[in-house]
Structures are given as C-alpha cells and as structure tokens.
C-alpha cells in the first residue's frame, strides 16, 4: 500500500465521501471558501509575497534613496506613509522590508525543520538508549528562553540577518523534534507499518514512505505557527541591531529608528508595527485553520 492511498483513506473516513472523490484543487478551494479566516489570511500572505518579490516594481522610491530636504515628513501625496530620519520613503522601505521578513521567517523555520524533523523521526524510530539521549538533548535545549539562546548564538556566529535566523532555527529544532518523536512513536506501531515490515521493507523505506507522511501532520500546523514566532523574532533581533543591518530595510529596524525620533514624528512607528502584527496574525490564523482541517474532531478554539 502506498502512502497516497493511506492518506486518502484516513481523509475519506473523516470527510463526506462525495467531497473526497473531487480532485485536490477543487477540495482546496472548497475548504478555503468554507473557512473565511483562512481565506483572508492566505490572501493577505499572497499579497505580501507578491509585494516582496516585485518590490522594485511596486515601491514608489528606491528604499535607500535619501532626501535630506525632506526628513521625518508626515504622510503626503508624494510619500504616502511619510519619510524617515534620513528622508527615505517609509512605504518603499516597508515593501522592501517584507522581503526580509518573509526570508527570515522561512529560513528560521526551514532550519528548524531540517534539524528537528529528521532528529525526531530518527530517535523515535530507533528507540532505546539513542532515544533516551536524544530526548535529554531536546529537553536541555528547550530549557533556554528561545530569544536568549538566539541572541547568544547570533553573537557567536556573527551579527546579521542570516546568522540570526540560523540561531532562531536552532532554538526551534528541539520543539519540532519533540513533536515528531511523539508522532513517530504512535505511527511506528500502526498495523500498516507492521505489514510493510512483514513484506520486507527496509528501514529507510519505512521511514520515508510510511512513517514520515503519516506523522508529519501536527508538524505542518506547528510550522505555520512558528512562522509567526520567527517573524516576531526577526523584528526583535533587528530592533536590537543583531539582525538586518543598515541600510537594508527591516520592519524591526524601522521601529528602532522610529522610536529614536518618536517625539518628532510619532506617526512613523505605526506602519512597521502593524505590518508585523498583521503578518504574525495571518500565520497564526492559517495555522489554526490547518489544525482544524487536519483534525476534524477538534473545533476551532
């Protein structure tokens, strides 16, 4: 039995049979239409991704173009969100900042997945003393306040966005490993895994074809929620000047500058803050929606 058969079977048991026979794209749109919060979140994130990719086309000004005649200007027709302390267009920097925000969140979560998922599957599958040792390592890293660990690791690797996000990913890894290990323990005793073993499947085949696809569901939810955490971490680390380095634009870095001149131009602190808030909210909402989708027995909280 292949893994695709397996997932179809589990879904058929939960969803109405008629819906399950529809092709996946149709089912996806039907789900999205039925879950308006997911629809709005996904629409917002799609616009954000487009803005990040097409920043040079959309942004009205170059992000680092200074205009020393027009410092900390209030919003106007020429500068919709005003200008910063170097006369740079806030809207343009916000649009360019979305690239760094999305890159940062994806990188941190990607590293967390790359370390955490294989580690969790491995120790859960092998068991025994390897599992014991692995679990203690997970507990030990989990004991750190995540941002404290990230600040310390960034200091060691060297400041800058990529290193800061590697550090955040390092703090994420044990969280994902723990979930993945627990799931693997459940799945590896399932009848179909036993059957595959009986047919002489290799360990690698078992892990890749049977255990991973069936244990990954809670991780998908966790990963979506983690994107929000990573985004907030990037903003925070850039605020502390450990992340994105000037003159590159980042929402957290924009807030740091805006805070510096808050008495002169208080309106400068709103746009980057709302950008962070809405994006984190969109990731969280999407995560909750996927949770409900994957496990129809729980109701939306």
């Amino acid at each position, binding site marked *: 039995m292949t893994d695709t058969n397996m997932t179809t079977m589990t879904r058929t048991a939960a969803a109405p049979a008629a819906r399950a026979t529809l092709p996946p794209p149709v089912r996806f749109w039907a789900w999205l239409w039925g879950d308006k919060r997911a629809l709005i979140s996904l629409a917002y994130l799609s616009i954000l991704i487009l803005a990040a990719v097409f920043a040079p086309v959309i942004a009205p000004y170059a992000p680092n173009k200074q205009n020393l005649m027009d410092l900390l200007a209030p919003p106007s027709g020429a500068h919709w969100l005003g200008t910063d302390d170097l006369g740079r267009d806030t809207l343009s920097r916000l649009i360019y900042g979305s690239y760094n925000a999305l890159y940062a969140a994806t990188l941190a979560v990607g590293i967390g997945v790359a370390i955490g998922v294989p580690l969790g599957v491995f120790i859960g599958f092998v068991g025994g003393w390897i599992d014991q040792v692995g679990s203690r390592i997970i507990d*030990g890293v989990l004991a*750190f306040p995540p941002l404290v660990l990230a600040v310390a690791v*960034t*200091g060691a690797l060297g400041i800058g966005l990529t290193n800061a996000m590697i550090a955040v990913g390092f703090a994420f890894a044990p969280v994902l490993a723990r979930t993945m290990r627990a799931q693997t323990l459940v799945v590896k005793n399932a009848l179909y895994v036993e059957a595959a073993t009986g047919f002489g499947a290799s360990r690698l085949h078992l892990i890749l074809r049977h255990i991973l696809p069936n244990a990954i569901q809670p991780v998908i939810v966790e990963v979506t929620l983690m994107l929000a955490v990573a985004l907030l971490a990037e903003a925070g680390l850039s605020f502390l000047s450990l992340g994105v380095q000037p003159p590159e634009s980042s929402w957290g870095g924009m*807030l740091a500058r805006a805070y510096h001149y808050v008495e002169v131009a208080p309106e400068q602190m709103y746009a980057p*803050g709302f950008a962070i*808030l809405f994006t984190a909210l969109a990731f969280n*909402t999407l995560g909750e929606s996927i949770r409900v989708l994957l496990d129809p027995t729980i109701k939306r*909280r």
Partner: protein
Amino acid sequence: MMYGVPGMVAQRLMQLVPVMIVATFVVFSLVYMMPGDPAMMIAGDYATAERIAEIRHIYGFDRPMLVQYFFWLGNAVQGDLGHSLFSNESVLRLILARLPHTVLLVLYALVLGAVFGIPLGILAATRQGTTLDKVITSIASLGVAVPSFWLGIILVTLFSLGYRWFPATGAVSVFEKPLESIYYATLPAIALSTSVVAVLARQVRSALLEVLGSQYIRTLRAKGLSSGAILWKHGLRNVAATMLTIAGLQVNRLFSSAVIIEAVFAIPGVGNLISYSALNKDFPVVQGVALVLVLVVILTNLLVDVLNATFDPRVAASA
C-alpha cells in the same frame, strides 16, 4: 523508595541532571560556534599576539574541548563565570547586579498576566458562543501576534511622552526603593504581559470548557447543584494545574521578550546585558547570562511541578 511529594521532588531532581548537563554544554560550546579562530574573534581586529594567546589560554582553546568543558563547569559551579573582556569585571557580579531588574519585570508581568488572563478565560468559557466570548478570543489572538516591544513603544508614546503618567525609561532598584521600582516597571510589565494574558485566557477557556462538558459535571448538574457552585468548586479546581503549568511555561517566554523590552525602556537588566554583550562579542558575559537564565527557567519548572504535586495528590501519586 519515597512516595508523595518528597519522592516526586527527588525523582524530578534526578531527571534534571541530564538536562543541566546538556544546557551547560550548549552554553559552553557557544564559543566554538564562532567562525575561524575563536580566540582571534574574541580578541577583536586590533589585538596583539599576546592578547590572543592570553584569550586562548583563558578559554583553554589549547586543550581538548571536553577537558575544557569540565574545567569551565567546575569554575561555574564555584560561581566563577570569568571576567568581562572589556571591563574585566566579574561576570557573576555583573549579572547579580542586573538580575533583580529582570526578575521584577518578569514576575510583575506574570502577575498582570494571571490577574487579567485567568478571569478573561473564565468569562469566555462560561459565556461560550456569546459576543463577549468572541471579543475575548479575538483579543487573545491579537495578544499573541502583537510584537511586545512595539506595544512598549506605543505605551511610552501615550503614557510617558503624552500624559506623563509614567517615566519613559530607566529603572529603580527594588531593594532601595521598592514602591518606586514597581512604578518604573509598570509600563514595561504591561507590554510584556500581553502574550501571557492572551495565552492564559485561551488555555483557561479551553481547559474549563473541557471540564465543564465532562460527564461528572453533568452528573453534578443533574443533582441540582447551581452553576456557580459547579464552576468554583469543581471546574476551577480542575483547571488550576493547567493554569500553573501554563504560567510556568510563560516564564521562559517572558525572559525572551524581556531582552527586547529592556532595550525599549533602557532597563539595566540581564536582557540588556546579553544583547549588548553579544553585539560587542563580550563572550564570557553572554555565556554567563545564558547560563544563569537557563538555570532560573529549569528551577522555575521544578517549582511548578512541586506546587502541582502539593495541590493535586494525583500528580504526586503518578510520579
């Protein structure tokens, strides 16, 4: 073999040993994560050959890593966390002078989180499905997504620069002027507490809904017990452990957020110390703060376990 609460504490302490070993090893190995020769990285660009050799010796990069780990651990256990590479001050002393500010902030935020989060959760659960419930759950969603340091900036703008109710920045020693220190810590604690309020409200709501929907509560209702009595005597008692556990887990996150909040409010706590030291590659200080904070978190979790076992005999029995 001991039973009950003392037995549970003994068991937990045993479980802590490997966690401590891993945590201390992570802190120790931070210097080995540096690209290139760590001694040269720490010494900086314009260091003399003697300074580099000195640092290599201080860190023991001339010895095998594991050997050096035990030396480092031995010193740390005796309270010797080394000296700052810049001011040459004792790292432990630097940390102890700043830790009270951070601990006050975290405790204050935790209290605010409990005072607002738990009642909101109860209110939402007992009025499930109403507009009030929806408003509370929406606020909770916003609370987890809002960057706490941005909220801090807004609070400063409104209440310090605008109304001048609170000082914008700074902190006062809790030992010298306790009341004033709380006054100074109010805005940062509010900014810090939003995520705790949100998480507690959410978790208390869902835990309480689960208990209130359970079979034995239905039995009590059938026996004619008033809903007030059910909620206070049976419902909340059963979610108390959940609340305590969630609050304990939040301590970890609060120390995280405190790193940024302390920068916003210019509070001379350990959060400010670690970010400043990381920027300046003052590695003994970075390691010292990370070590002290991970120990504080581990001991907090132990305390939560003990409290849970004391209040709930089932926890102690299952240990």
